[in-house]
């Protein structure tokens, strides 16, 4: 049993609009990230994946607000720490974040090396230019990135290279947990592979202890992640190992999500894609029962009553009152 780097219990966060309405974007998420593992989070747009990622860093800027729950990184509950300590001693050192649009994350008016120096100085105020330069060059070498990037401005780099530079900046201080929020969705397949290879190198070299990888590309997630959690309307509806989820999803939503997989393999051409009808629910008000009930083809009256608790199935968890055998039976008739 390896050490747990990140433990989240019953996290509730919401957005508050200008009209004073609350949008409950993350409600009751619990997850555990073990050292050396990659946890993938899958789901549609607007299901709360990115909000969850932002919430996990313990940073709450309006309109995002924290309600309850605990986030424990390596034994420390970061919700109990004040803002300044969190910023200088946790962010980047314990937990780091890679945003989706690398183009917007780099300062266009500064060279990459200056930008990296800033990051280091927040955490190590006394570091000299030479020290920082040596540290950065060493890291670029380890990650097989060309050194010509360092004196360049962001506009001189390609999209894939910018994304890899942002990853190098985020992980410069060896964070225990790395959150990658759709790092490859703006890239073509070849650059995507380079970015994934770099993330894999980071894990193998021990620069990063564990990773949360957010994407809606299921075939990609299957190869990158060890465990997968499927998110829907602010809740995790199913979690388990990558093989279990991709090859034999239990929850009706995860099952339906697998119908959207497109891969260039023989036989795909004759398959019919199954899109999920309808749109995700409005999270301004919390409906009783299962949140997927309105779009679920197998929903009954029972689904819309009370709260649907998470159920354990070995090490897996899923949020549906039906027995797994009963669900498998239903799917086999499709």
């Amino acid at each position, binding site marked *: 049993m390896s050490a747990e780097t990140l433990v989240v219990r019953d996290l509730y966060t919401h957005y508050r609009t200008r009209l004073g309405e609350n949008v409950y974007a993350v409600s009751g998420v619990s997850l555990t990230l073990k050292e050396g593992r990659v946890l993938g989070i899958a789901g*549609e*747009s*607007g299901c709360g994946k990115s909000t969850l990622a932002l919430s996990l860093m313990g940073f709450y800027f309006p309109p995002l607000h924290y309600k309850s729950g605990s986030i424990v990184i390596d034994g420390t509950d970061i919700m109990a720490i004040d803002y300044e300590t969190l910023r200088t001693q946790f962010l980047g050192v314990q937990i780091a974040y890679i945003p989706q649009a690398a183009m917007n994350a780099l300062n266009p008016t500064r060279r990459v090396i200056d930008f990296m120096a800033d990051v280091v100085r927040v955490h190590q105020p006394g570091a000299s230019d030479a020290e920082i330069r040596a540290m950065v060059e060493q890291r670029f070498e380890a990650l097989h990135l060309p050194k010509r990037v360092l004196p360049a401005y962001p506009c001189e780099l*390609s*999209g*894939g290279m910018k994304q890899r530079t942002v990853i190098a900046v985020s992980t410069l201080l060896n964070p225990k947990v790395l959150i990658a929020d759709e790092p490859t*969705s*703006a*890239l*073509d*397949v*070849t*650059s*995507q*592979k380079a970015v*994934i*290879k770099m993330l*894999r190198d980071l894990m193998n070299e021990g620069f990063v202890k564990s990773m949360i990888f957010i994407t*809606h*590309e*299921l*075939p*990609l997630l*299957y*190869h990158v992640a060890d465990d997968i959690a499927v998110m829907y309307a602010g809740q995790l509806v199913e979690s388990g190992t990558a093989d279990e989820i*991709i090859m034999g999803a239990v929850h009706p939503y995860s099952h339906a*999500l697998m*119908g*959207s*997989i*497109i*891969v*260039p*393999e*023989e036989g*795909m*051409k004759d*398959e019919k*894609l*199954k*899109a*999920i*009808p309808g*749109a995700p629910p409005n999270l301004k008000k919390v409906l009783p029962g299962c949140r997927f009930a309105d779009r679920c083809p197998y929903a009954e009256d029972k689904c819309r009553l009370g709260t649907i608790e998470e159920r354990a199935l070995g090490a897996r968890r899923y949020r549906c009152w039906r027995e797994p055998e009963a669900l498998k039976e239903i799917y086999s008739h499709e």
Partner: protein
Amino acid sequence: MNEAKSVLRGQALSRSFGFGKAKFYAVDHIDFDFHEGEIISIVGTSGSGKTTLAKMVLGLLKKSSGEIYYMGGPLVLRSHRDMKAYWNHVQAIFQDPFSSFNQFHKVEKLLADCIEMQGLKLSREEAFAKMRSACSFVNLKFEELYNKYPFELSGGQMQRLMIARIFMLGPDILIADEPTSMIDACSRSTILEMLLKLRDEKRMTIVFITHDLGLAYYVSDSILIMNAGKIIERGTAREIIEHPQADYTKSLLADVPKLNEEWKLG
């Protein structure tokens, strides 16, 4: 497919940027022939010239040399009036649905513009009926949407609204430039199904531009693989994916994560 008539043909089509030493060809003397009722995918990495080709075909970018033939005759776009007439037959969907619409107009007005573009004079009821049928084609509910602004819709909804517009205009050719790269996997399958429906019901020729061979394989009849402005390989979707010949195609195929095969990171 030989009896199908040629809708769009390119002959030694090229476009260069820069002069002298800095001159390079974004599209380098390529030939193509698209037939009626066919979905053609153009696949390549970023910077391979896919979008430049699309822009030339749309008349948004001037060609450096070569010729485009539309419905057998050479394409001549001298004035804005020529362009407008041409765009009644050739339409496009772009990558970013958020910038495809006028943000100040409601959905009703955006759809009503299509009726105006066709030069039809319809009563409000007739126009509504037409818009309603277009929305139901793309599985959207017109009653819920007509009073909304584009920014109130999700990316998937907007892209579907774009297809509803295409449905109303009924062009001969649709250029879809990475229409699914900014929306999630679930709405993506809906969009792909709709493109197939447009082909089957309206006999539309669709040029589908993507970097994902999986999508190209699923949706298209034939595939062109492009790299550095040149066409590396062409063939039916099955030929290209199941028996790729060129090394570039093979490497492109290896870069896509698959389910039943190990993904070698190298």
